[in-house]
């Protein structure tokens, strides 16, 4: 009886025709490459950097190499800092956006999204002009006499975090905005009615009820920030490697595709783990992608 649903009848033909291009697309561009990555992560390389299709676990053992672990550590700390700063900036921003008039809300939304119509490489390069040794910020600080020597602001971990926050902020604002916007305003009134001032209302009512949005935002920021290698390349100048750098180097420079594949699989595993935690906590998958 189970197979009743999949029986081809004259009715299911149009459905089949409609769905099949999307299915073909997904299989061709996502499922097959992913499967290929998974397979080669168990392979080794030949002398001439070709892939040797023989089963080995040495790539997975190599993950626990000290240098690799330190890059993981660095990458995770960059991502945690990025997520924290994004929350601190995005929450008040989203809150004001909900509270303000429709016109100002639209303006804030445009202000948030407009930079993303420009290439992100160009936008990151412009930070160099601002923060570099001979950049405007250093020039200005010397001019007003706060410092004598230009400070090294670029190519530090802070610069990488800055670049990440700058690149990923909208992904934090949007889910938080959605959840604050949906919050039942009478709950805030009820809290005030029961004798709570704004701070208490925020701590006991608003924050707990908007936490799913924050968590969704954290996932949307945390996961990409592990992989955005060009941000750490441009802002960190190669001194601050993240997982993304490691992977791109395996594919582009070291020609060790199997190890690159292993690192990618690890990244996917981390992602799945975080999403699992999110859904376990009652979050909805739709809200991660829909906004």
């Amino acid at each position: 009886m189970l197979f009743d649903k999949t029986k081809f009848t004259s009715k299911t033909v149009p459905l089949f025709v409609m769905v099949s291009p999307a299915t073909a697309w997904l299989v061709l561009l996502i499922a097959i490459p992913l499967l290929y990555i998974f397979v080669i992560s168990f392979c080794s390389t030949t002398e001439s950097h070709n892939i040797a299709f023989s089963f080995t676990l040495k790539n997975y053992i190599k993950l626990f190499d000290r240098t690799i672990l330190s890059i993981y550590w660095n990458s995770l700390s960059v991502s945690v800092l990025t997520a924290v700063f994004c929350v601190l900036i995005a929450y008040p921003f989203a809150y004001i956006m909900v509270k303000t008039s429709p016109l100002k809300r639209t303006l804030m939304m445009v202000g948030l999204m407009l930079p993303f119509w420009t290439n992100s490489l160009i936008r990151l390069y412009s930070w160099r002009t601002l923060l570099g040794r001979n950049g405007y910020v250093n020039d200005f600080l010397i001019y007003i006499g706060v410092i004598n020597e230009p400070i090294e602001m670029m190519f530090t971990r802070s610069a990488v975090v800055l670049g990440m926050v700058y690149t990923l902020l909208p992904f934090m604002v949007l889910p938080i905005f959605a959840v604050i916007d949906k919050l039942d305003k009478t709950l805030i009134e009820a809290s005030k009615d029961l004798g709570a001032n704004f701070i208490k209302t925020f701590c006991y009512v608003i924050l707990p009820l908007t936490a799913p949005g924050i968590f969704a935002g954290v996932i949307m920021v945390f996961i990409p920030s592990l992989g955005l290698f060009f941000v750490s390349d441009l802002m960190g100048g190669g001194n601050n490697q993240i997982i993304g750098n490691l992977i791109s180097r395996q594919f582009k420079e070291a020609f060790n595709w199997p190890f690159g594949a292993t690192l990618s699989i690890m990244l996917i595993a981390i992602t799945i783990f975080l999403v699992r935690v999110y859904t376990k906590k009652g979050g909805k998958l739709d809200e991660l992608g829909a906004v």
Partner: protein
Amino acid sequence: MEKEPEPSGTNSVIEIKNVDKFYGDNHIVKNLTLSIREREFLSILGPSGCGKTTLLRMLAGFEHHTKGEILINGESIDDKEPFKRNINTVFQNYALFPHMTIYSNIAYGLKMKRVKKDEIEKRVIEVLAMVRLEGFENRYPSQLSGGQKQRVAIARAIVNNPQVLLLDEPLGALDMKLRKQMQIELKRLQRKLGITFVYVTHDQEEALTMSDRIAVMNRGVLEQCAPPSDIYEKPGTKFIADFIGESNLFESVVEDGSDSTDGNAHLFSEGGTLLGKLEQFEENELLYVCVRPEKTLYSLASVDGFSLCGIVRENIYLGNVIKTIVVLTNGQEVKINLSPGQVPPAIETVLYIYWNVKDCVMVRTISHRIFTELEKVKLNEYGEVMEAEPINKEEVKSQEAP
């Protein structure tokens, strides 16, 4: 029609004096004056959009009045935030905190006031018993039925022992049977606690059964504030006569040179002449004679003073009452309620409508007041006001707005 019965010995808790509320250009509450007394159950009744919820929200502190004054215990509430008022609200959609258990929901207000933990526990248990929800402490609002949520919402408010409890259509979402049951429970609770209840509703039956006094609002104007029996039997305005219960309204004017030898007012209406109570009349004043269907009588021969002739259109059997609908010569429908024992007149019978003069009420529209005020203003040939009679201009203005 702000004529209120003499204060029945109790002091007023809330004084609303000439309060106006605008939303942009919308005049929501118009020159409203009302005093709410200690320990009374006051209903604010009116059709949706009449400003009753806005009035309640102003008392709660979620809205600010544009003009006028609101005093609680003689103190102005202008700069008192909601959380500083000794008033609690039961919200229409309950507004229970979904992330807290029933216990935490009810304890919230006490926690904010830094009441000691064991004291909180004692009072929460006590109040849960009062609303008959023992054993629900650890459930979440989503696990409760509508009626239970409603009782939690009430418990959460009364646990703070407020001076005034504001209820915004709290039974609106419940089904008929549950609503009736909750009405009785609410009334019982109010008596027991001795708290002033201000209850907003659009359900007249609810207001009539529960209230000590009813304030009827229409288009932002307070039409009348009186005990339920007065509201029903002596409606102050045409709106109330029409809105509360069923009534037959006859638009009429005073007959010229009417002799008042028999002590009745002789009136003209489109359907014919009729009798009303003798009162103070203005010349050519438009009056409405209001007669309840159960007080409306009929006879086959014309009755002295009445010439309302009509034809029976329909007899509707409603169990406890038979409703006879008579169409007058001008097309107006008149409803007559007969008790089930009586034999209704056959359809298409021609008959005459009459009533005992003591059973009718003479009402006016509220705009009537404005016109009588305006009559007093003398204009010169350029249309300017010549004699400034002491009229309250603002009042007139506010009444004119639709």
